[in-house]
């Protein structure tokens, strides 16, 4: 059975990584869950771009760091922090579309 990402995380948020990038940190409940999501290759540029209605070119990078049980990706802003038309100076509050991201069940 597929699971929703929100049920697998300890916490998640979006925040500036400098004024031109928004970085999304998705931190998992335990190592096994982190490894399972990593193996399932849930986070791809194509999938994130589709979820956020942006061209793939705006997804700069996707990284993981096992010691922090974290998968993170970086979105290039269309308007830099605090410039006219910006909506979130800190890059905060952009993660809600991730709630319903489906993680496929592993075949045993």
């Amino acid at each position: 059975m597929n699971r929703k990402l929100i049920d697998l995380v300890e916490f998640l948020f979006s925040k500036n990584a400098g004024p031109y990038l928004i970085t999304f940190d998705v931190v998992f409940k335990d190592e096994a869950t982190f490894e399972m999501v990593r193996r399932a290759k849930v986070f791809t540029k194509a999938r994130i771009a589709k979820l956020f209605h942006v061209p793939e070119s705006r997804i700069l990078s996707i990284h993981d760091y096992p010691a922090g049980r974290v998968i993170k990706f970086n979105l290039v802003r269309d308007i830099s922090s605090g410039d006219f038309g910006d909506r979130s100076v800190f890059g905060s509050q952009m993660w809600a579309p991730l709630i319903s991201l489906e993680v496929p069940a592993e075949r045993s």
Partner: protein
Amino acid sequence: MTAPSRARAIRVVSPGGSIGYGVNADSLQRAVASGLDVIGADSGSTDMGPYYLGSGRPYHSRATMKRDMSLIIEAGLANGLPVLIGNAGGAGADPHLAWAHEIIKEIAREKGMSFTLALVHSQQEKRYLKERLAAGKVRPMPGVPELTAERVDACERIVGQMGVEPFIEAMDHGAQVVLAGRACDSAIFAAYPVRAGIEAGPALHMGKILECGAMSAVPPTGRDCLMAIVDGDQFEVVAPNPARKVTPFSVAAHMVYEVEHPYLQGEPTGVLDFSDVVFEETGNRSTLVRGTQFHVHQRPTIRFEGAERVGFRSIVLGGIRDPFLIAKLDEYMAGCTEQTLALADQPGVSLNWIVYGRDGVMGEMEPERDHPGHEVGILAQILGPSQEVAHDVAALLEARMIGFPYSGAKTRTAHVAFPFSPLVNDTGAVYRFSVLHVAELAKPSELTSLFPIEYFKVGAEP
């Protein structure tokens, strides 16, 4: 870099993610009582946006900044510990440094303190950056457009982000308190250990963890102290507050905070590499960190930040409860925009709408934008070449907003509930980070010489 590390263990405290937010005095006292070598304090960032660098205004509450600086300077002087403060005033340019300097003089006067203060400037001549640009030695940070000389010239002011070198220079000259402009967060905490002979890798890595205060502890907060004890090539991260602990996970999860890459992070003299870092719980509410690598740059670099004024803003804020208008918002906003800009006939004016309750936070990225709530908030903003023009056009816009005849209306006018009189509010200048670029230095001595230091005998009798 050459001699093997034989330095003694160095004990560093960070009073919190930023002084000026309210330092936890009890935790600071505990840290001091446990034995310290240095107090480091971060006080700024680019996080709050370009306004502060552009306008020269301070970010923090002055009263709380005074309280916090007073606490750490008193603790430092009473115990013979250097106090190193970086990113003064939020953005670290000369007006911010002057603001924080005034506060320090006031504290010394009121408390009868006297000490040697070093003021380290980070505001930069445009000429230097343009020279490096012309030499092909400037590259953008990820996601940032290529730099041009025009953009450099357009900036209100430019700062460079110093590393450990100016802090070390100031301490070598006997400064007891160092007030520095824009600095790498890591450098504020790493400077003393590096001066004492600790390798750059563990020292800078430790600094990266301390810069957010107890954000690396459980429960996490940026408003409490965090300590580290650097010994040879490893360091222990300690929470002075007994209500918190530091775990391998709490440190590792925070190491990726607000950075693009989780384990490769650039510094002026090299790249920190955390890929082989090992964390070990001590059983004493603290965690040991070892295995940091540091890949030294062939030539050192400095990151430059510059804010350009793009215009002046006036805003109109209102709420809409009319379901027939909520259904026709795009038509309504397009109509108001068109009529306003046609009437205003002013060059260089931009109009922007934010609709809260529909897609106010995420804009075109919002997956639910076709399902607005039963009521929406509208923030209309005008950007103009002067405050007068922005205000004038916003006044025209407000008059369109109240009566624009959208299709299917069940009312004739009074389309928006405005909460304020005045209806138009002027919010001042708007800035953009036009410079966010890394320059390779012409010579390593510029790591110090780009950041001139002034020394003062604060509180001394004339």
